[in-house]
């Protein structure tokens, strides 16, 4: 089970109670979740987060097996609001152009 809190992303083993903390990029403001739930696709957990230095929201991805986190960067990802996943794809609704929400598939 993965828990999002002030310490980063924490991987919790429900059977043993063991906790592993994964640091996320310092720019990602994960203590203020943007909207909705994280989503999992192709071994990566995606969630929307405020990006402090960039003054907008974006998408952070964490490799489940690698435990490494990074900001998902593309001109199509800007002011991300929601993320979902199915069939190996992640889907993001965001605003790369103000006022024109766009659905983007990450594969």
């Amino acid at each position, binding site marked *: *089970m993965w828990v999002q809190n002030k310490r980063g992303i924490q991987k919790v083993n429900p059977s043993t109670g063991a906790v592993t903390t994964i640091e996320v990029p310092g720019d990602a403001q994960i203590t203020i979740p943007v909207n909705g739930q994280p989503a999992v696709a192709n071994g990566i957990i995606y969630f929307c987060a405020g990006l402090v230095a960039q003054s907008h929201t974006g998408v952070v991805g964490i490799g489940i097996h690698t435990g490494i986190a990074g900001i998902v960067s593309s001109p199509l990802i800007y002011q991300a609001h929601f993320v979902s996943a199915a069939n190996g794809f992640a889907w993001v609704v965001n605003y790369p152009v103000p006022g024109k929400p766009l659905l983007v598939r990450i594969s």
Partner: protein
Amino acid sequence: MSAFAFVSLSVTSARAQGAPTFTAYSHTGVATPSGLAAAGKYVWISDWGRGFKKRGQIVRVDISTGATRTVSNRFISLPSVIAASDRYAWVMNKTYKEVWSLLRIDTTTLSVTRVKISAAESAGIGYEGDPIVLAGGYVWIPGPQGIIRVSTSTLVTSTIKSRLIAGPLFHVVADAHYLWMNVPVSSNGPLYTSWR
């Protein structure tokens, strides 16, 4: 003309996995997105519209073709969080008078069925961002003092309460056996714990 735009970039962090490809699905007709769910052949987007100029709606996007279908119905006013399966999309919806209900949308016919949620069961809860969960033949909806359970087959609604739930639930997730949720452990403090 294709509705897609393809952009291939690497993740910003050099340590992160892979080099994802980004595909834009334009022209969904959504004005104010308020929820998103992907399942099977479709992605569902709820849309608050533009006030009185454009009513709320729910949009179904075919992930293969990019084709969109709009679900407009008298029950749809301000739709928000979505949980979806291959057969149905389940959408929380509120009226302008803050009355919440759960809408079931048939994936194929797009017919809409409303499941009423009593005011007592949803008091003080905003479902714009908080999740609902589809698991074990039920839709699970966090409530102010417990979790609301809606049967996906009979649409019968019940509320599960526990002394461990002392206030509004935060996040809820499910695995194959259990529902996991963050609950306040003290009504006076911001401490939360996971409970199954």
